[in-house]
């Protein structure tokens, strides 16, 4: 076996690696997987545009809040004004993170590079949560910018007061919404289906709740929108937390677990 018998352009890079004991190549650290998944959210046109649109919407809402009324807004008001629309749209990022692998068929490559599919699913969850935190930071920055603008151009008092409980509640709401997006995407593995289900099911539930009298007592425990409402209002009591827990179990934990089971059991095909 002489090295010079077969001419190729770049023999140095195509020669097979020498056989090596398994120990020399360690497994893929979870954090690295999460970083890869995070990058996948941002490196496609669709993903970038979604984030740009969310950023623009947030800025637009701040502009409206700034120009309507006398301009006196508390920082908390501005922040909640930005977080609410974000909590609605940002989960689509989570949905796409989970479904794109299947609609774009990249699962074939992803799961040959990391066959432990649950880890990939959890990496997607973590990276989506990281996106949530990053966007929350951005919305805080935008809200602060808006407040500075109000003070400079509209002579507002500049109320910087921010209830720590509401701040925490807003972060939690955003994270839960992101997790719900990933969960729905993982469960349905189909972008349109997951988006429709994500937006339509809670509405359907509240309509049913409005018409069926016997549902009225149960609804606050199973409807995520109702249960998460107090997070932005502050003053979450014991029962509020219990309601949030049951609603989260139904809308976030159950679809996520079901989705991971489905992904692990699925056959990954190219067509």
């Amino acid at each position, binding site marked *: 076996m002489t090295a010079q018998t077969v001419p190729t*352009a770049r*023999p140095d890079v195509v020669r097979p690696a020498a056989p090596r004991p398994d120990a020399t190549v360690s497994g893929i650290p979870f954090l690295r997987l999460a970083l890869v998944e995070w990058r996948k959210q941002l490196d496609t046109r669709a993903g970038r545009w979604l984030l740009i649109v969310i950023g623009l919407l947030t800025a637009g809402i701040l502009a409206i809040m700034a120009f309507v009324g006398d301009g006196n807004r508390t920082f908390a008001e501005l922040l909640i004004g930005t977080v609410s629309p974000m909590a609605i749209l940002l989960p689509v990022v989570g949905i796409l993170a989970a479904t794109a692998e299947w609609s774009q068929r990249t699962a074939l490559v992803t799961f040959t590079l990391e066959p432990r599919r649950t880890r990939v699913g959890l990496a997607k969850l973590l990276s989506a949560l990281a996106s949530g935190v990053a966007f929350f930071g951005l919305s805080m920055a935008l809200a602060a910018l808006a407040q500075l603008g109000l003070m400079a151009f509209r002579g507002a008092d500049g109320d910087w007061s921010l209830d720590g409980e509401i701040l925490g509640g807003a972060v939690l709401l955003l994270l839960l919404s992101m997790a719900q997006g990933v969960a729905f995407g993982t469960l349905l593995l189909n972008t349109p289906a997951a988006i429709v289900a994500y937006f339509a099911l809670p509405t359907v539930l509240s309509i049913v709740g409005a018409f069926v009298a016997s549902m009225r007592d149960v609804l606050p425990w199973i409807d995520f929108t109702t249960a998460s409402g107090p997070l932005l209002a502050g003053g979450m009591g014991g029962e509020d937390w219990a309601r949030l827990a049951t609603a989260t179990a139904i809308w976030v934990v159950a679809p996520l677990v079901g989705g991971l089971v489905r992904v692990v059991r699925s056959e990954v095909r190219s067509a």
Partner: protein
Amino acid sequence: MITADRLTRRYGSFTAVDDVSFEVRPGLVTGFLGPNGAGKSTTMRILCGLTPATSGTAHVLGSPFAQLPNPGRHVGVLLDASAQHSGRTGREVLELGAMTMGIGRARVGRMLDLVGLTEKESRRRVGAYSLGMRQRLGIAGALLGDPQVLILDEPANGLDPAGIRWMRDLLQDFAHHGGTVLLSSHLLHEIEKVADELIVIGRGRIVAQGAKELLLRGAGTVVRAEDETALATALGAAGVEAERLATGGLSVMAEPQAVGRIAAGAGVVLVELRAAESRGLEDMFLELTAPDAREEVAA
């Protein structure tokens, strides 16, 4: 080294892969040949842990694929070059792979060079790539982790003749330096040139496997003589099967040397004596898979 041991995969009543066993050894290019729908891709997906086998086991480098730590560093896989996010650039696809496997970004550039994708092309979205460019990108992705084993499903699809030749050189070089290569194809002429060993599959079952030379041999000898009737009689007496050709001469199922010896013993003057031309893999392939192919059409 890849080992498949009695792999079976059923979809309802349909058996896509039926009791398939083979071994792919290092140092050789092994061709996996079969008509469309024969079970090649399903078998390869089972090897890579993407499709669970109904029964049987598959091992790559001594362990099930799914249990390899960081498998991209051991096994380069290309199952479908078109299975890429159309909105990602070719370079980004490789950088994500390099990041996942934990290898330096420098190798991405070297792989792009190797497969002949220019800097400008690598910055374009995969959705704008031709099939040939996607195949090149896929091959770059398979080689990215500096593997010892390559598993490639129809890698020559969409490549131009120069590209096919380039890939052939690359795979042979890889194998002849100790790598293990399994590549599937229905491009018969291509696989005949590149493969050292062959596994032929038809309707989920292996219909032939072994060294290419062995599979192609058995074409026998063509012999012409002054007195062909006498030669045929002598061959028959020696227990060697012979058949008269319409074009004159005899087709004998024996090595030329043996035929010559029998002719000499019988005192028959030979006009021509040569090994029959290889039937070619295509004939063998069609012959081996014909009953299966027909049944498939009928079904």
